């Protein structure tokens, strides 16, 4: 049971993109098409599982004061090794699709976040499961975003035109401002659903822990109105 939750929590309950709001940079920058989002997700999943494993193994001896630089060195090494191995042995089409994303993972804070929040406190097996689950959640969220943005841009999904009459691309959704707008709408929708659900069940809606949105007060004001 415990192990299963380690894996499944990353998919929805603690989804890195939609709940933890980690890794926003690749989320905004790389999801202009479904293929890109999926590729970044898969590459990150591998790195997450691997770095979580290594860090859970060395966490016992790493001095607390310098744990962050040590983790960064470990992650960077891991990513570089994967990059070199893929360049050498992966089929060209796969490396062409994933290759540009791999160096970007070094600066992806999901990897460092999971290392610090989970892998450094748990054993290797649970850490791998956590990495895989988080990676899967990241992949799903990125692919979904990619599909939405790609469809709004050119009417195609995974580079297959669904609306054949759509001949000229609409560039806003595939550009950075469009990414902010769409991610914002999704987050707003998710928070709205959560709040409705909380009210129906008769409890107070508490925004996800660690999300510092208290200065906005919309959630709290509306709640006071309904009570």
């Amino acid at each position, binding site marked *: 049971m415990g192990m299963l939750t380690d894996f499944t929590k990353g998919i929805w309950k603690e989804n890195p993109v939609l709940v933890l709001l980690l890794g926003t940079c690749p989320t905004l920058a790389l999801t202009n098409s479904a293929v890109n989002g999926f590729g970044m997700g898969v590459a990150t999943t591998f790195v997450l599982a691997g770095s979580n494993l290594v860090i859970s193994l060395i966490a016992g001896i790493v001095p607390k*004061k*310098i744990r962050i630089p040590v983790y960064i060195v470990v992650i960077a090494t891991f990513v570089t*090794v994967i990059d*070199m191995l893929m360049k050498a042995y992966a089929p060209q089409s796969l490396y062409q699709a994933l290759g540009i994303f791999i160096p970007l993972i070094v600066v992806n804070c999901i990897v460092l976040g999971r290392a610090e929040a989970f892998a450094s406190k748990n054993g290797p097996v649970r850490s791998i499961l956590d990495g895989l689950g988080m990676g899967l959640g990241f992949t799903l969220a990125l692919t979904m975003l990619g599909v939405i943005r790609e469809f709004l841009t050119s009417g*195609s999904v995974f580079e297959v035109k669904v609306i054949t009459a759509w001949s000229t691309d609409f560039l806003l959704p595939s550009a950075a401002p469009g990414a902010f707008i769409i991610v914002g709408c999704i987050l707003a929708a998710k928070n709205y659903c959560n709040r409705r659900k909380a009210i129906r069940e008769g409890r107070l809606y508490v925004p996800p822990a660690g999300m510092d949105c208290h200065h906005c007060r919309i959630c709290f004001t509306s709640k006071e109105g309904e009570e």
Partner: protein
Amino acid sequence: MNLKNSENLWVLGLFLGIIGLVSALILAVVSNLVAGPIEQAELRNTNQALRQILPPFDNQPSEKRVEFTSPNGWPVSFMAAVKDGKVVAVAAEAANPQGYAGNIQALIGLETDGAIRAVLITKQNETPGLGANVCQRKVQKTIFTLFDKPAEGLAPNKILDQFDGKKASPDANWQVKKDGGEIDFISGATVTSRAVTLLVSEIDRTYLLNRDKIMQELTPAGGK
């Protein structure tokens, strides 16, 4: 000594140093191990691109490159496709730094008389959906053609294809139509279209100007 709660600067520094050293060691070993396979993989990729723009050849074109300078000062490198000891076509590679977003690099197949066989953009960073459309050769799949077999050869691109079979002779007016030339462009992506046009014309001009020298240097020894 409790390493985990240590606050001794020397211990911390040493620990970080050791971690760095171990990582460097791992990277050095892996980098050495995969150097050969990476080189082979890159060679395979170059050959794949060359095969698309050149007639059948039996040598290794990328092994021998000769460099010349284009009329406006860009380095252009030439490779020969050799079949039965004879140069059958030439591939030329150069980059234009004046794309909309940095370098645009092209690989162009040329007949021995300087006529263009095919233009391939190998590196570009143009705006997706706009400038990139000038550079990419990609067949748009639709739900109706999803299960069709992919066509053989190069995918069409109406901007790149218009150079096929032409020569950048002195009287050719290779400018985009907006600048009074004869080359079609994509409106909204004029900068990219201009950059590609200039790049193709500079490469072809370089070949036409230095043709004898290039052929002399690229003709394999013992062949004719």
